[in-house]
Every structure is written in C-alpha cells, then in structure tokens.
C-alpha cells in the first residue's frame, strides 16, 4: 500500500530516528440476547492509521481516519512535532529502543470458518435456542447469551524496513443463567474467555448441553450453603478460574512497564522489581510460567507485536524463581536488555501500543495426576470453577478472589455445593503454597479479552492456561 512508504519516507526526511505506521481495520460484531429479546446487534468497523515517531529519546504518536496523501503527511508532521515536544522534557532522561532487525512477513489466525462471514441468522437462531433452553428451567429468571466476534486487519511498516501483513480474529461466546430463590439471586456462567479460532469452535461446543448444565448449576448454587467464617483450607482451582488469578498475580506484576513505574499513576506498579530477577522465589518448585506469543489459538498470538518484534516463548517463572519479564523495545533497554520479548500491543489504530501481558500459562505437572486424584488427596478444601469477584492492590501483592461455582471437599470427596466463597492471599505466599498440578492431559486455555490498562485506557486480549492445581493453607471463607 502506497501509504506505508509515503509515511516512512516522510518521517525519515523529517528527522525521525525510528518511525512506524500501523494501518488497522477492526471489525467487531456484538450480539446480546437476554430473555429472547435482542438487546444489541451491532457491527462496528474502525479503520485508520497510527504513526509513531521516535526522536531524541522520546515518542510522538498521531492518528487519523482520513486516507489521503495530504492527511497522512499532516499526521506524520504532527507525530514528529509531538515527539520533539516530548524530547524537550526528556533531555535528561532519554528513552532508548532495543535493537531489532527488519522482517517482511504475513500472519493469519488459522480458522476453518470465518466467524464474521457466518450468516447472522444462523448465529441468532443458535443463541435463541440456547436462551430458550435455559429459560425452560423453572427458577431461571434471566438467560443471557453474549457473543463477540473480533477481527483485526493490520498493515505495519517501519523505518527499519519491516513490512507486515497481519490478520487476526477471535470469538468469545458467554452464556449466563440467573436463578432467584428465597431472597437470593445467583448466576452461573459458561465462559471460556475467547479463542483465536473460527466458528468451527462454536459448532464443537454443544452449547445447548452447556446451557442445560449452567441452568441446573445456577439452581443448585442459589440453594447452596454459605461457607462459614474464614479459615485456612486447601483450594483446588480449575483452569477457567486460575486463568484470572494468574493474570492478576503473575501477568501484571511481570509487565516490565509496571516494574519500571510507567503505570504508577493509574494501573499501578509491581513488587517484582529487577533486583529479584533470577533469585526471587515467586512460587514453589513446581511452578513454571511461560510467556508464549506463539501459542496455537492464543489471543496474543499475532506473529509480531506492534514494535515489529516476532512472537516468542520464554520462562517468566522457572522452577518457582522469577526469571524474566514481558518487555517492549523501549522498556527492555531500561534494565539493560538488548532485546524485546515482543509484548508491545495496541488495541485500535488510534492507540499507542503499550507493554502487555503475553499469552501466559502455568505449565502442567510432570507426574501423572488427574483432577480426581487431586480431590481424593485433599481432606478439607474448596474446589472453585469459573471466575467471579477479583481485586488486587496496585503493587500486585494482596488479592481477594471469588469464583463462579464451588464445592466443599471433605475427606477426599466433593461434599456439598457452596456459594459466596472468597479467598484471600498475597504474593509470594499464594504461588509458594502450590503443591500439586494435574498433568498435561488436563491443561486447558482460558482467554481474557478485556484487560484494561493504560491512559487513555485500552482493552487487550491474551490467553492463559493451566491444569487444575492445589494450593495449601489459604484463607477461605464465605462473604459477609
């Protein structure tokens, strides 16, 4: 496309030390069905370009939705001018960019059936049937089906000579059943958090059966007991619960921009500071976390990040020790690294990319272990499925999590269903209390498509994953 060369030539002639342009067209289809009423059926197309200029140790970023030579050159000029203003402030503390080579490449999310192209009627008919299935249960007062399909078509060029053509997409179905009983109201949700796949995934899910399951579990949950006062117990956490726990307590603290204090004013900083690298016991010896932007079906698998750095796989925590961060070209140099781990991502064309959590997952246990054996080996505990309330402090140390469905474990058996369970813990206590992880047969991914961060706020996506894991001696109890 002519705009790529035009922008890069203009930026270079205006004195940019580095510049890139990202032409991005984002298509979102959102369908929200509640109690057989279509509340929202919208297709949104957001198309434009963002131009980033690095000059004298500072960034300038300008964006536009107007595709003409004149508008593009004006946007380049604006980015250069802003970079110069930034540089006037940064003259005593210049940013630097980690070295990177040029690439000419394409990447496309492998899909069998493009979800956007599936006729709307087919989608709505499936959603209505799922809705009807849930509403057929007496006691289910609200049935929701929320479907998001997202597609990004990006062209990227940089003054390094890189030219990228990247097409990614994901789909995220979520169904919720809410039951009321004797003054209480409880919901149960089917939510895998989204996957970078096509409509074939939806066809494989058997959502009618899922709808029956969550409706029945909502009815069990609303009548379930509340756990008594807080006490120290074992927790067995399902992958679709643990995904969010690792997101908050490992993913965010190991983003290098937070470590450096670049999010101090808003999203917060991190306790996992650079002097702890290679020596800090973040978790027990069986705790291994991988950053992996090559993960098949991963939401952060884009081929390359928005610095033009290829996707990589690396240990973030190795044998329980803090090993490395997720980094970008501008954050890496701040701790003396001469390479980036390729974690710089923007959401829309008008967003300046920022340091993001990669696909991040807990490696499965290396010895054969089933979830059933894990439960059978637990005397007093709670098994948690699905995500619920979650809150963590701005240093990413102290946290409190709820869940979506709970079973009390007594003497190695699922004893009774529970509701309103919360647990409290902190880093590094929590991950050091992990004493068993089921093996790779039970490893499952869990996507996050709404990770809010940055000013102005951006919503990013990434995939987590684990096998069911056990945590000993955690403070667990019923809410107030």
């Amino acid at each position, binding site marked *: 496309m002519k705009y790529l060369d035009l922008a890069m030539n203009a930026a270079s002639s205006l004195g940019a030390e580095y510049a890139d342009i990202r032409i991005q067209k984002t298509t979102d289809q959102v369908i929200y069905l509640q109690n*057989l009423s*279509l*509340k*929202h*059926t*919208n*297709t*949104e*197309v957001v*198309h*434009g370009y963002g131009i980033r200029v690095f000059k004298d140790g*500072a*960034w*300038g*970023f*300008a*964006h*536009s*939705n*107007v595709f003409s030579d004149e508008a593009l050159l004006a946007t380049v000029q604006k980015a250069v001018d*802003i970079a110069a*203003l*930034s540089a*006037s*402030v*940064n003259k005593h*503390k210049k940013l630097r960019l980690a070295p990177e080579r040029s690439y000419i490449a394409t990447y496309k999310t492998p899909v069998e059936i493009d979800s956007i192209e599936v006729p*709307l*009627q087919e989608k*709505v008919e499936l959603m*209505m049937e799922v809705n009807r299935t849930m509403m057929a249960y007496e006691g289910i*007062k*609200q049935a929701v089906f929320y479907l998001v399909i997202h597609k990004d078509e990006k062209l990227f060029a940089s003054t390094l000579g890189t030219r990228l053509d990247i097409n990614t997409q994901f789909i995220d179905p979520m169904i919720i059943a809410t039951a*009321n009983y004797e*003054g209480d109201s*409880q919901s149960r949700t089917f939510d895998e958090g989204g996957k970078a796949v096509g409509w074939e995934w939806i066809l494989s899910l058997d959502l009618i059966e899922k709808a029956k399951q969550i409706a029945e579990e909502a009815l069990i949950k609303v009548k379930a007991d509340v756990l008594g006062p807080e006490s120290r117990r074992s927790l067995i956490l399902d992958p679709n619960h643990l995904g969010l726990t690792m997101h908050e307590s490992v993913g965010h603290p190991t983003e290098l*921009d937070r470590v*450096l*204090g*670049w999010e*101090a*004013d*808003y999203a917060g900083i991190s306790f996992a500071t650079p002097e702890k690298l290679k020596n800090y016991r973040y978790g027990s010896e069986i705790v291994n976390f991988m950053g992996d932007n090559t993960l098949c079906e991963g939401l952060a698998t884009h081929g390359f990040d928005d610095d033009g750095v290829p996707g990589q796989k690396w240990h973030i925590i190795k044998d329980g020790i803090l090993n490395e961060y997720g980094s970008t070209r*501008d954050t890496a140099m701040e701790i003396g690294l001469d390479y980036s781990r390729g974690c710089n991502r923007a959401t829309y064309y*008008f967003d*300046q990319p*920022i340091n993001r959590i990669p696909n991040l997952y807990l490696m499965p246990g290396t010895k054969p272990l089933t979830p059933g054996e894990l439960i059978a080996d637990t005397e007093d505990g709670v098994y948690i499925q699905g995500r619920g*309330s*979650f*809150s963590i*402090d*701005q240093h990413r*140390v*102290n946290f*409190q999590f709820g869940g979506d469905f709970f079973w009390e474990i007594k003497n190695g058996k699922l004893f009774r269903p529970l509701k309103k369970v919360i647990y409290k813990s*902190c880093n590094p206590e929590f991950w050091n209390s992990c004493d068993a992880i089921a093996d790779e047969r039970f490893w499952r991914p869990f996507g996050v498509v709404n990770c809010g961060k940055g*000013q*102005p706020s951006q919503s990013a996506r990434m995939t987590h994953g684990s096998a069911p894991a056990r945590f000993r001696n955690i403070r667990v109890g019923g*809410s*107030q």
Partner: protein
Amino acid sequence: MNIERIAQYIKQHVTADDYTLSVSNWDSHETRFAQNSITQHIAGPKLDITLHVSYGSKSGSCTVNQDDDTTLAFLLKTAEDIAKIAPEDPEFMPSATAVALPEVDNCDAETRSLSPKQMVEIVQKAIDKAKAMDATVSGMTEKHYGESYLLTKNGFVGNNRRTEFGHSMTLKKGTVETKVDYNAKRFAPFNLDKDFARLAAQATALEGMQSFEPEKIAVILRPGALQELMWFMGWMMNRRQSDEGFTPFTDQLGKPFFGDKFSWYSTLLRPELSSTPYSFEGYASVEIPWVENGVLKTMPTNRYWAQKVGSTPSSTYNMYIPGGTATEEEMMQLVPRGLIINRFWYIRTVDAKKGELTGMTRDGVLYFEDGKVKNAINNLRFNEIPHAATRRILALGANELASSHALLPTMLIDGFNFVDKTTF
C-alpha cells in the same frame, strides 16, 4: 465531519421504518509521563457514527468511523441487513420523538484552544517540582473537545459540545506514593502550584508508615475515595434489575433504605459539573433525586421498562452528593479514632444481591486518634456494603469537584469494614 451531510444521506437513502442516528466526534491530546519523563504522547481525532434501524420490531445497528458516501452506504446497508433478519423483539421501542431540551454549558473555548506546547509546559513544571524534592512524578495531562448528535426518524434532535481538561500526578518519594487529580470541563480553575503543594503535603504526612491491622473503624472518605465507591453502588441501582430481584434495592423504592444524611442527585444546576442535555435513548435530562434524605426515590430506568412499569425513563448523567460544613479536623473530634482515606482502588462486586463490594485503599491512609493525625499506615482491603454504610454517616464536609461528573463531600462513616492489609 459534517453532521448535516451525514443526516441528509441517511434520510435520503434509508428504507427502514424507523432509525436513530448517533454521531460523536472527538479531538484529543494526551501527554503521559512517568518517573519524570514523557513515555507516551498522543494526538488525533476520533469519529463514531452509529445507525440503529428497525423494520417493525426487528432491529439492527452498525457503527463506522468515516463519513464518506461509500462508508455511509455500508453503514446503512449493514444496519438494515441485520434488522431484516433479526427476530421480532418483544421489548422493541420506537425511536424517540421531538422534545424540548435543557440548555447546558459543557464547552469552554480556552480549554479547547490549549496548545500542545502549553500542555507539555505543565508536565515540565510538575517534573521540575518533583525533582526539586528528590522525588519522581507520573501522570497524564489531557485535553478533549467533543461534539455529539442524536437524530431520530420520529423527530428527536439533540446536540452537545463538551470540553475536558485533566492533569493527574502520582508522586513517589522513597516508599511514599500519593496522588492528586484535576479533571473538569474548564482549564481555568486548574492551579498546578496549588495541586502540587497539596501533593507534597500529602507525601510529607505519609512518611514513617506504621503497620495497622484491619478492623471495623471510622473512616473519613475524601471525595476521590467516595467517588470510586459511589459509582459502583450506582451501577447496581438499576430499576429493572431491582424489580426482577437481582439487586439489594428490590422492593425498596420510596423507602428509607439509606441513611438520612445521604442524598444523591443528577443535576443540571451545578455549573461546575459536566452534564448532558439528553440521554442516549433520546429523552431530555432533568433534575433527578435518586436518593433524598435516605429515601430511595428512583433508579435508572430504560424507556422500555419505564413504559412497562409506568415510570419515567432516567439515567445517571452526573453525581452530586450534597455535603455539609464539617472540616476534617472537626470530623476527627467526633470519633475516638479512625482513618483518613485518600482513594480506593480495584473495587469489585463480591455479592451483587447484597450489594457487597471489595477494594483496596491507595495513595495514602492516615490514622487519627484523639482528634489528631498520629501516623500513616499500610493500605487495607475492605469488604463493605455501601448503601448500608450510608446509615453510619456521622458528618459531611464541603463539596469538591472529584471529577468533571462528580461533586462530592468528604464523608465521615463509622464502622467501615476492613478485612485485610498490605505490607506497604
């Protein structure tokens, strides 16, 4: 962007029975700084054109961000194609009709004309001040100008122009972190020297932190902390959700469900607050007492549910909680001991039916005893039910602008439920 041209195009080419056209156009400049240097610097416009159409009770919508004829044709065709194959909606509502709108003044010429150079000078000055006290500062300076329009087939026409200026600063000195934030529709009242002096004073007060165990204790919530808590409570106050039994406000309309010292309005009468002349559903903004002297008067209600239950549609367009005259010093005399909370952070729902929330303190907690501040303490986690907490309000301070949409007092609440602590 030419709204008349966009509207004319839709009017000429639409085949649907009904439509609502919504257009917003923003121009923003955002300078983000951290640890005494600029890390991000962003400028540019954003356009958003949404068309909602219906054939009978079958609806669809589309959103685009360009206004050329090709894109508008795509917008119209996509919305109409969706509507044609959508099922009949049992809760369908026709588009809004013409209505007289209140005049609001949300736009300020001086704020709109702030230059990038002026904004960077503000950042430079903040950094210089931080360096002078051997500290680092992080934050964002931002300026926005926006225009929005809402037009319907049935004759509703509304428009709103808005400016906003913001400057936030988080100061870090040693282990002390604290924040001061300005966010308003006008730049003129902003005073960096005053804000930084407040920031520095907060930082000094937070030196020498001592460990404090969680307990139920009186709190003085500063407006920034109260704002975080009240927005979350406000999101649970939904008429339909409550009528259907999903919130703590079920069957509480007209009853003294809150403490009698607590009132909450959305208002057009406070000129310092941003507001809007109309809602996105196309009805005029009016004065709304959500809670008055503890009595739950009404809750946000969409047009469909309002018609069904014989109420008036309403939505929260800003937050005004009337204050009192008590100073922090006077509040400290009213209880034997307590905490002063600067801000809350990461609030989430624990139990939606009970209205229970959790969250952390952030950016400074002070312990007071016998009417005087004794020392700074570590951050704490709370699990609390805000509407129940309003029944324990002991005193209210003067109103302050917590953000462009929130005018709030300092509030003294007894027995706030803290359940955990951090080490910092």
